[in-house]
C-alpha cells in the first residue's frame, strides 16, 4: 500500500501502470469477445472466412488523413439485386440478375469479383455479363462464360481478355472516367453503375447466392494482410499472448533464480560453488541460438518455447545480483535470532531470507518482462512463431516476408510494432520507478 502511494509520485510509474492496465483490459475483452479457438480459426482463414475482405488494404482510419475519399469494400447480395426469369421453351428459362449501385469514391477499387452458389443440374452454367456506366456506355464484360454452381467465382479483375480490351486492369478500366489517358493518371467516374448477368438455364436450376464484391482500398480497423485477414484479430490477440508469455517467462526465470540464490547463499560452500559455476556456464550458452534450434527441431508451439525459455533461465545472470544481496542479509541479527530459536534451514531461507530481498526482485522482475515479450517476437520474426496463434511478432514477420515495406503497406509492420513497443515501455517505465522506490540510494541520483 505504501509502495503504491509512493509510486504515485513518479509520473513514469503512473504512465507505466496505466499502459499495463489498458493492455490487461484489452486482453480480457479480447479473450471474451474472440475465444481462443475462434481466434485460431479466424487466423487460419481458409475459404469462406475472409473472402469479402480486400487484400493488403490499409486501416479505415487512414481515410481520415487523406483528402480523397478512399474506396471501401462494397458487398452486394442477391437480395440487393433484381432477378427476373422468363420461360423460353424446351424446358429452359432465361435468367437475368441486375445489380444497381452507386460508386462514390475518389479511388479505384482493388479488385472486383463475383461469387456464385446454386443447384445446377450440369454443375455449370454459361453466363454473360454486361456493364452499364454512369456516362451511358455499355461494356460487354464477358459472354457465355462457364460458371461453376458450387463456390463458383468470376474474378473480373483477373480477366485477361477484358484487360486487353480495356487497355487497363478491369477494376480500373470499368470505373475509369476516361480510358484514353494513361493508367497512372486515370480517375474514377462517380455515379450509378449497373452489372447485368444473364444466361439460359434448365427450369429448376437456381442460383441461391450471388455476391458482387467491389474490393476497397481501406478495410477494418487494423487493415488486412496478403490473405485478406483482418489484422485487428492479430493485433488484439497479440496482447494476451504477449502479456502471458512475458509474465510467465519472467515469473519462471526470475523467481527460480531468486530462490536458488537464496538457497545457494544460505548453505554456502559447495552448493554455492556449484550454483555459481552453473550460472557462468549458462552465461556462455548461446541462449537464443539453442532456443531457435529447439523450436526448429522439435516444436514451435508457444507453450513449449515458454518452458524452454524458463529452463534456460533458471541460472540467469541475476543470480549474482541476488547473491550479493543475500550475503549481506545473511549476517543480519534477526537471522541469527531465528537460528537461536531453532528454525530449520528451509524455514529461514523461505520466511526470513527471501522476503528480505524482495525489493531487489520486484523491479528486476518487472524490467525483465519486456525482454521476454520481445523474445517471442524475435522468434516469430525468424519464422518460428507459434503456427496457430496470431502474435505481433508473426504479423511483423508476415509483413517482412511479403514485402509490405517495398509495397508501401507500412501499417502492416508499424501497428504491431507500436503495440509491442508500448507494452515494453509500460513495463520498463514501471520497473525503473520501482527500482527508485525500493532502492533509495538510486533516488538521490
Amino acid at each position, binding site marked *: 500500500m505504501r509502495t503504491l502511494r509512493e509510486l504515485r509520485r513518479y509520473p513514469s510509474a503512473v504512465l507505466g501502470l496505466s499502459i499495463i492496465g489498458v493492455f490487461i483490459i484489452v486482453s480480457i475483452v479480447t479473450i471474451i469477445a474472440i475465444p481462443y479457438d475462434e481466434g485460431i480459426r479466424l487466423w487460419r482463414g481458409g475459404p469462406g472466412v475472409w473472402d469479402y475482405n480486400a487484400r493488403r488494404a490499409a486501416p479505415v482510419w487512414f481515410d481520415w488523413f487523406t483528402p480523397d475519399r478512399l474506396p471501401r469494400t462494397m458487398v452486394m447480395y442477391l437480395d440487393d439485386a433484381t432477378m427476373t426469369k422468363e420461360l423460353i421453351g424446351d424446358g429452359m428459362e432465361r435468367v437475368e440478375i441486375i445489380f444497381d449501385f452507386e460508386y462514390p469514391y475518389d479511388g479505384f477499387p482493388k479488385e472486383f469479383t463475383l461469387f456464385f452458389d446454386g443447384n445446377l443440374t450440369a454443375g455449370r452454367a454459361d453466363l454473360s455479363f454486361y456493364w452499364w456506366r454512369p456516362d451511358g456506355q455499355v461494356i460487354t464484360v464477358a459472354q457465355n462464360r462457364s460458371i461453376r454452381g458450387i463456390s463458383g467465382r468470376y474474378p473480373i479483375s483477373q480477366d485477361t481478355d477484358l484487360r486487353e480490351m480495356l487497355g487497363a486492369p478491369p477494376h480500373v478500366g470499368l470505373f475509369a472516367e476516361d480510358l484514353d489517358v494513361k493508367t497512372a493518371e486515370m480517375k474514377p467516374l462517380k455515379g450509378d453503375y449497373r452489372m447485368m448477368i444473364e444466361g439460359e438455364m434448365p427450369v429448376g436450376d437456381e442460383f441461391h447466392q450471388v455476391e458482387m464484391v467491389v474490393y476497397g482500398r481501406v478495410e477494418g480497423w487494423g487493415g488486412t494482410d496478403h490473405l485478406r485477414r483482418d489484422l485487428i484479430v492479430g493485433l488484439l490477440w497479440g496482447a494476451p499472448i504477449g502479456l502471458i508469455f512475458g509474465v510467465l517467462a519472467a515469473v519462471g526465470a526470475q523467481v527460480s533464480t531468486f530462490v536458488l540464490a537464496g538457497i545457494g547463499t544460505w548453505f554456502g560452500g559447495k552448493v554455492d560453488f556449484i550454483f555459481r559455476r552453473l550460472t557462468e556456464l549458462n552465461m556462455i550458452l548461446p541462449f537464443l541460438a539453442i532456443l531457435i*534450434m529447439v523450436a526448429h527441431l522439435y516444436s514451435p508451439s508457444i507453450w513449449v518455447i515458454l518452458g524452454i525459455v524458463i529452463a534456460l533461465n533458471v541460472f540467469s545472470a541475476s543470480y549474482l545480483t541476488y547473491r550479493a544481496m543475500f550475503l549481506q542479509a545473511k549476517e543480519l541479527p534477526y537471522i541469527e535470532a531465528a537460528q537461536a530459536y531453532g528454525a530449520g534451514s528451509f524455514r529461514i531461507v523461505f520466511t526470513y531470507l527471501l522476503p528480505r530481498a524482495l525489493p531487489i526482485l520486484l523491479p528486476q522482475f518487472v524490467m525483465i518482462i519486456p525482454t521476454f515479450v520481445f523474445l517471442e517476437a524475435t522468434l516469430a520474426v525468424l519464422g518460428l512463431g507459434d503456427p496457430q496463434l496470431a502474435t505481433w511478432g508473426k504479423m511483423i514477420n508476415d509483413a517482412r516476408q511479403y514485402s509490405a515495406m517495398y509495397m508501401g503497406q507500412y501499417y502492416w509492420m508499424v501497428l504491431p510494432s507500436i503495440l509491442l513497443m508500448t507494452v515494453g515501455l509500460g513495463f520498463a517505465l514501471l520497473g525503473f520507478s520501482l527500482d527508485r522506490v525500493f532502492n533509495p540510494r538510486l533516488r538521490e541520483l
Partner: protein
Amino acid sequence: MGTILKNLGRFTLLRGVALFVTVLIGVYLTVAIANMGGAMDEALKMQIRLEVTQLVYQNPDYFNLPQTELQRLVDDLTQTRVRQEGLDKPFLERSVGYTRNAITLSLGRSESIMSDSGSRLVRNILLERLPSTLLLLGTSQMLLFFLALFWALFLSRRYGSFIDRAVIALAPTSAAPAWFYGLFLILIFAAILKVMPWGGMVVSPPPQTTLGTIVSILRHLILPVGAVLMGAIFSSIYNWRTFFLMYSSEDYVELAKAKGLRSRDIERRYILRPTMPPILTSFLLIVITMWMGAIVLETVFNWPGLGSLYYAAIQTGDTPIIVGTVVIFGYLLAATVFLLDFLYAALDPRVRLSFGGGRS
C-alpha cells in the same frame, strides 16, 4: 612488476581453462539437444549414404550391375560404414565423438547451403561468414562502449540538468532489441526517404576499387550499427552514469578535491578507475545479448554473417550448419567473457597484486 605479470598470467591461464571446460559442456549440451530427436544421426547417416552412393556408382567394376543390385550394394556398404563409425553405439558413446567433432568444427558437409567460394564444408562456410559478423558487431560494441562511457561521464558532471533527465527518461527504450529499431530505421531511411540501402553488405554489382568497396561497406554498416546503438545505449548511459555518481560521492574523492587536485585528474584516477570493474561487468552482459541479437539483426538487414547463415540453415533444415553455428556462437561468447575478464583482472588491483579475487 614481475609479480603483477605472474599473477595476471596465472589468472588468465586459469580462466582460460575454466572457460574451455564451460564451452565443452555447452557444446556437449548442444549436441545432446540437437540429437534428442536423432537429427544429428540422420544428418551423418545421410552423408555416409551420399559418399557410398558416389563411390559405388563411379566404380567402373560395377557399371554392368543392374539397378537393384547397385542399390543393395549401397545399402550394405552404408550399413558397414555406419557400424564402423560407431553410429549404432549407445548415445553416450556417440555423443563424445560428436562433441569432439563439434569443438573442432569438423562437422562434415552441409546439406544444402554452400559458401560463396562453392565449398560445402561446414567449417569453410562458417569461417567465411565470421568476418562480416565480427565487423558488424565489433564496430557496434566498440562504438557503444566508448560513446556510452563518455556520455555517462559527461552526464555525471551535469547531474540533474535537462539532458541528464532526458537520458534517464529515454533509458526504458532499451527494452526493445536492436532488430526492432532496425525495422524502423529501414522503414524510415530505406523505404520512405530512400537515402540508405535496404540491407546487404556491399552494393551489387560490387565496386571495382578497394576504396569504393570500403565506402560501400561503411554505408551499409550505418543502419545496423545505428540499430544496435539505439537498442542499448540509453540504458547503458543511465546505468554507468549512476556508477560514476556513486563513486564520485566517496570520501576519498572529497579528500582529493580538498587537496586541490585538478578535476580532470580526480576524474581519471579516483572515479573512472574504480568504476571500470562494474562497468565492464555490465558491458559484458550487454555484449552477450548482442551476440545473440546478431541472429535476428543480420536477418533483418540481410547482412551476410553467421546470424543470417543460422537463419538460412533453420529455413532449409541444415542440421550440420545449425550445430556448427551454435558452437561458434558459444566460442564467441566465451571469447568475450575471456577478454573482458582479462581487462577486469588488469584493472582490479586485488587480482593484480594478490590473485584470488576476480569477478563474482
